[in-house]
């Protein structure tokens, strides 16, 4: 099967306009994973995509030290850092944005007598920017969201909002009201939500993993997506996007490994409760504020807080006279701390004799451990397998949630399900992690559907192909998608089934 391939590499040097650098592109490669490759592909942390673009640099256009370059001001002194990059490939007439991210670093291979110069733009996908963005939730957010019964999709949308991203542009929440949501309706209410100077991206991954879903940055449209536990019943994960076979790939082989094989799954559920009102913080020593001085004071609590009930402050001068009224206080309340600015407006040295914060902490409740063994009792009856323990995710907070997650994984990972490796795929559809495809190897009698777990792609001289690993859909869910009860479609007498 012949396939025409064209490509475009663009860089936003000035931060606004895309500049086509395709004429300098020698080669490119990148990868994308459904989850951290060090962990299980399901209910685990996410993974930031990477790409490298090797550019012809005989004119030293891309050398940061070349003052004569047209783009020198955008390269020198680290100015290249986090310039946006977009790589598009047209396969068989259909355009795909294969990568969207920014420059993380430049590797320069200087020109020699034997080689023309080249540079490698080392890039990461855009979600890497919110990996290092630390955010904290306000006290009001945590208590309000508890009262409002928010699901994981709503919480993820709020985390993105706290990062400074825009609903409707960078993501589309269920509550946005128009357009097609990129954040799925959540399947579980997560009672307690808070961040205490934590990575926004990692927190979104944690939330998604706690609910059996997946959070990722979609390089195709540049938006953030959350797909819930039912992701392989709909859209790209629910319907085969293409057929992979030896006619469009160099090699299609089964993989036999026990990486995703477990005899049992154990999930630890950590509910929380509102504690009694008590003193939750006071400084270790008496604080002194000089006349006219402003000090900052950070009160960090041992646990997140539901409600601050009182703040008792008493300041005296050296002579013991009460000058509390001369101390002005501003505060920023986070879920797990308060930042104060205290200004002594008097002419005396002020000593904070009393500074007590009372409130109700969100305390840990009684931990519940739910274990489910693989339904494949015939297989495990004569074998000893691994147990997968999910014990450190604070967003697994209700029994219904923990049970659903555990049952899902026990059914999915309790079987020696087929996996596949595909090398040199040259189809007309660019395949991404989470896509459902049909895998065929007639020689080995392979013919079934599978989910793409990882994709690495490479552009060479006149070629573009992908290397994929896949997980057969036999045990993705215990039933075929058509067997499930669809809200708004089915009635009680349609003989359909509940999901987990």
């Amino acid at each position: 099967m012949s396939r025409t391939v064209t490509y475009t590499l663009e860089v936003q040097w000035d931060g606004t306009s895309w500049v086509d650098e395709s004429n300098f592109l020698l080669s490119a490669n990148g990868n994308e994973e459904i989850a951290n490759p060090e962990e299980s592909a399901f209910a685990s942390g996410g993974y930031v995509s990477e790409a490298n673009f090797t550019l012809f640099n005989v004119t030293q256009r891309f050398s940061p030290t070349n003052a004569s370059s047209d783009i020198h001001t955008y390269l020198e002194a680290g100015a290249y850092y986090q310039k946006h990059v977009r790589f598009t490939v047209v396969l068989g007439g259909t355009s795909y944005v294969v990568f969207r991210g920014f420059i993380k670093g430049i590797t320069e291979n200087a020109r020699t007598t034997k080689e023309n110069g080249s540079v490698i733009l080392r890039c990461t996908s855009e979600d890497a920017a919110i990996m290092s963005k630390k955010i904290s939730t306000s006290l009001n957010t945590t208590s309000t969201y508890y009262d409002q019964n928010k699901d994981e999709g709503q919480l993820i949308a709020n985390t993105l909002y706290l990062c400074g991203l825009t609903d409707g542009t960078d993501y589309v929440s269920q509550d946005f009201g128009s357009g097609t949501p990129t954040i799925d309706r959540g399947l579980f209410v997560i009672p307690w939500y808070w961040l205490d100077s934590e990575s926004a991206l990692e927190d979104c991954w944690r939330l998604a993993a706690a609910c059996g879903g997946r959070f990722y940055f979609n390089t195709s449209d540049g938006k953030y997506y959350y797909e819930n536990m039912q992701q392989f019943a709909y859209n790209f994960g629910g319907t085969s996007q293409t057929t992979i076979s030896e006619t469009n790939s160099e090699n299609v082989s089964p993989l036999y490994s026990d990486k995703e094989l477990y005899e049992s799954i154990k999930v630890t559920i950590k509910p929380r409760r509102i504690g009694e009102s008590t003193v939750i913080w006071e400084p270790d020593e008496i604080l002194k504020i000089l006349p006219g001085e402003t000090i900052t004071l950070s009160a960090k609590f041992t646990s997140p807080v539901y409600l601050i009930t009182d703040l008792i402050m008493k300041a005296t001068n050296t002579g013991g006279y009460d000058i509390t009224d001369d101390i002005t206080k501003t505060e920023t309340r986070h879920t797990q701390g308060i930042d104060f600015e205290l200004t002594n407006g008097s002419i005396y040295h002020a000593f904070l004799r009393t500074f007590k914060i009372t409130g109700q902490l969100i305390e840990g409740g009684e931990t519940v451990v739910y274990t489910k063994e693989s339904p494949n009792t015939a297989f495990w009856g004569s074998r000893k397998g691994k147990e997968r323990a999910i014990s450190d995710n604070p967003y697994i907070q209700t029994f219904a949630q923990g049970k659903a997650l555990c049952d899902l994984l026990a059914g999915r990972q309790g079987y020696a399900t087929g996996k596949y490796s595909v090398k040199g795929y040259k189809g007309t559809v660019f395949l991404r992690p989470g896509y459902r495809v049909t895998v065929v190897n007639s020689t080995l009698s392979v013919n079934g559907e599978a989910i793409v777990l990882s994709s690495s792609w490479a552009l060479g001289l006149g070629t573009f192909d992908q290397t994929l690993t896949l997980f057969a859909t036999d045990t993705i869910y215990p039933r075929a998608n058509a067997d499930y009860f669809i809200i708004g479609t089915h009635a009680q007498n349609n003989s359909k089934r509940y999901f987990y």
Partner: protein
Amino acid sequence: MSGINPLPPIVNDGRILSASWVNQLSECVNSSGNFVYGANVAYWLNPTTQTVTGENVMYSLQHKYNTLRIGLTLLEDSYVHVKLSKSDVYVGTVVVYDNHFTTTGVKEFDIDITNVTGFTLADNELYFAYVEITPDTAGGLNLITMVAEVADNVIAVPSPELATLLQSVVIEADYLNALRSAASGLIAYTVPSSVPFCGVSTNRSWNSTNSVLRWNIKHLSQYLHVSFVHDSDVSDVGFYINGDLIESFGTGNGTVTTAIYDMTDLPNSIAEPAFGSTNEFKFTFDTDSAGTKDFTVYYIWELPYL
């Protein structure tokens, strides 16, 4: 709402219905039942044969519902005023009720406190109600039996009302979300409130006719817990329900007396009151005429356990 299981999330048409959603809804509704029959505290009847002014009697309330219900038992024709204030020192009062009752007996009336000129309350705001009674002639015992905020249709009927499902009816997201909202409405009214028991201490004798040691309580839980202390020379203590003697106690000695009664098996063959009925409990006793010996009631409340 610590202790209540959270609701399941909102659902969309086109998505698969999950068992965890249904189970979560069930757990949520079931757990709200734990709060309905918590501690049930007796309400002091504030009996008097005299004129009652706001300077004598003050009721503290936290605003939750729109109607203030006043219950009285009048043994004399009386003028009744109800005043509201945000101050606990009888200043800045607003009159919300003013009536001259020319018949005696049980009286009950509602006051819409959302429509009071010059007096606006925020949710959960603390305020004070003064119930004033001026009998035409001093004589029989007047009782203030109720001062409480109440809500009509406490648990709102789901709107639109939930349809009866037939086997052939497609279950849509609107129906499931309405089911969820109905559960949310149920939970909203099961927030337990901390109702104080109004303990009373007195150093004079009281008999079954004039005793001021009277409390009303709705029968909701199985066990009635009672605690009091009486000094030496306080004797012939009687504890009654609706005028029937439950138990007699001898002369006191300053130690606390605690008793628990199984309402399904009361002493002296007293029948269990109807569930939800309001019942009057009272103490009577004699004390020395010098008025130096005290009788103090610590608590009367029903609990679902011993």
